[in-house]
């Protein structure tokens, strides 16, 4: 059972390393096929021809392999639900006199929640990519980078070691830089450059924070650092490192003053990647890592100043993201600004510092992954069918693309908080938590932002899918089956995720995750033992 944990990283990595070798086989056959056809020897010619045919057939191999891998990962992540806390010691290095000397992987409630999000969205995005990525060249390398992205994120959420977290964060981040630039058009390159510069600055801050913590504590294991910090009062150091981490991970999560790269980077990527970036990446390497380090490692859950910083950042990005989204005409850009606003909700909820706030934040994180990735997939479907992203030029697409239209309506209703859908419940919890903590003004701001959200999603629906069918789109057809499948599954999730709040199911997924954050610096004792 324990050996499941490294598989989350080893499987996608192995497949990623294998794919270029498969790609080389294809290339080699094509090359030799072309070269040798000139040679007149008939046997060779026949072989070369067969090689070309084989090459065509084996083009499907990467598709199947990658989908199998992500499906396996999904099954594995379903298997780890509702288990005890597991600590995996890499290389079998046991603690020496109570000091951990190897790298630990830790699987607790919070990691399970993140693993579920990553692998569900990852599987659906690969399913979607099979057809969608036909528009681009070099699909094999696309899959390689995609698997590396997933492996990096799984590594981040499972890691129990500061430096290891940094390394896997870089794997995910570098894969995402390359994927944003995948189309190599001017717009994509500029977005990728901006994204990478911001991302590298963030990594610099994070590495500096890690170096400071190592210098002060002499260890890199998260639990051990937490113990050292609670034993000796290194107050100033912890605060400074906390600010460094908030800057670094805030840049990765695109919280408001650090958001400048997101509205360029997310729309420029291919649609499945936009879904992964907006739905998962900014949460896994931004919000998750920030929350884990601030609450569990540095033990700043009680420190008022840090909580106020988080709340202020959250409120600002909530409001500004929504206001900026209101003015957008580009479908994907609007979605990107909306992501900033929703991340603001999540950070705000964590900043409240109460158990109900944690519950709201985590639940909203889960919901946002489902509806935002669905919306990005929808926008991809619209682009796939019409080659157009401008909302003003669309209109009446529901008639021609019923699946896309219907699923996007569900997602829009969910994100703007229409009652029976999942988005409503998480926003409700966040607002109740804010009122409970005594922040009436901020709670009313959250309600107001929710109304603005409704307004701009109504605009999307009215302009793109309802109304009169534009003259240019008479011949538009619904996208292929696999793309529809993944959109339908995600829309079912949007409707059904509210189930997670029912008593029996709540204590399987959400409660353990809230428990982890509530425990704060107790984390150390859970992992190292008393």
């Amino acid at each position, binding site marked *: 059972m324990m050996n499941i944990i490294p598989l989350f990283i080893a499987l996608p990595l192995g497949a990623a390393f294998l794919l270029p070798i498969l790609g080389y086989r294809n290339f080699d056959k094509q090359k030799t096929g072309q070269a040798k056809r000139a040679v007149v020897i008939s046997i060779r010619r026949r072989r070369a021809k067969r090689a070309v045919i084989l090459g065509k057939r084996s083009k499907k191999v990467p598709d199947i392999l990658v989908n199998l891998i992500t499906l396996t990962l999904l099954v594995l992540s379903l298997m780890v639900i509702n288990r005890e806390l597991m600590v995996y010691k890499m290389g079998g290095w046991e603690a020496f006199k109570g000091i951990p000397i190897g790298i630990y992987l830790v699987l607790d409630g919070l990691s399970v929640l993140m693993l579920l999000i990553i692998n569900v969205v990852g599987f659906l995005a690969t399913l979607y990519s099979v057809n969608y990525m036909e528009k681009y060249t070099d699909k094999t390398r696309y899959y390689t980078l995609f698997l590396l992205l997933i492996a990096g994120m799984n590594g981040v959420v499972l890691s129990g070691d500061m430096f290891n977290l940094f390394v896997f964060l870089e794997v995910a981040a570098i894969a995402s*830089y390359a994927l944003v630039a995948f189309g190599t058009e001017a717009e994509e*390159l*500029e977005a990728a*450059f901006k994204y990478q510069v911001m991302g*590298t600055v963030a990594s610099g801050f994070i590495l*500096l924070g890690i170096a400071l913590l190592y210098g002060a504590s002499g260890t890199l294991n998260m639990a051990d650092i937490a113990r050292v910090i609670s034993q000796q009062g290194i107050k100033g150091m912890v605060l400074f490192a906390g600010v460094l981490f908030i800057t670094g991970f805030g840049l990765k999560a695109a919280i408001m003053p650090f958001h400048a790269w997101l509205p360029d980077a997310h729309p420029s990527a291919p649609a499945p990647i936009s879904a992964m970036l907006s739905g998962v990446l900014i949460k896994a390497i931004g919000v998750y890592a920030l929350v884990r380090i601030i609450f569990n490692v540095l033990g700043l859950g009680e420190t008022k100043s840090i909580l106020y910083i988080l709340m202020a950042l959250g409120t600002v990005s909530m409001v500004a993201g929504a206001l900026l989204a209101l003015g957008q005409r580009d479908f994907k850009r609007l979605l990107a600004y909306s992501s900033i606003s929703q991340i603001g909700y999540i950070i705000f909820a964590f900043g409240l510092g109460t158990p109900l706030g944690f519950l709201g934040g985590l639940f909203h994180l889960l919901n946002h992954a489902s509806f935002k990735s669905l919306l990005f997939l929808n926008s991809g479907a619209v682009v796939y069918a019409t080659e157009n992203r401008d909302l003003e030029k669309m209109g009446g697409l529901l008639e021609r693309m019923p699946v896309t239209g219907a699923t996007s309506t569900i997602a829009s209703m969910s994100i703007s908080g229409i009652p029976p859908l999942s988005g409503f419940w998480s926003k409700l919890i966040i607002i109740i938590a804010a009122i409970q903590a005594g922040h009436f003004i901020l709670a009313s701001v959250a309600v107001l932002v929710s109304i603005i959200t409704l307004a701009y999603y109504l605009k999307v629906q009215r302009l793109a899918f309802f109304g009169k069918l534009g003259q240019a789109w008479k011949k538009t057809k619904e996208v292929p089956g696999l793309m529809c499948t993944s959109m339908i599954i995600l829309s079912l999730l949007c409707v059904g995720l509210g189930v997670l709040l029912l008593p029996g199911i709540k204590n399987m997924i959400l409660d353990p995750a809230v428990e982890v954050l509530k425990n704060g610096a107790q984390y150390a004792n859970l992992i190292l033992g008393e």
Partner: protein
Amino acid sequence: MIYYLLCMLLFVIGLYGVLVKRNLIKIIIGLVLMEYATFLFLALVGYKKGGTAPIITKGFEKAVFVDPLPQALVLTAIVIGLATTALVVSIAVRIYQRYGTFDVKEIRRLKE
């Protein structure tokens, strides 16, 4: 203490280059300088007065060594830095192909 401060100064110079300069290559140079500063910081943290390099030779098994762990971290970080630099330069070169310049003011979307 002074060493640490000088190291922070190097970090800040790199940060200044990234934030203020308006040329893609200069921005990349700023990033590289920031990386160097963090490597230097890690190496400084692990230095032990009077220690030797952490390589055991026959007859000197009990010598005083400097801390090997930050050195391992720096090795990892150097390779990560190289990877980042290679990718960012390739993107910059590609942008140059499109616009014929490294100047941010000429490049539409990078203007802030």
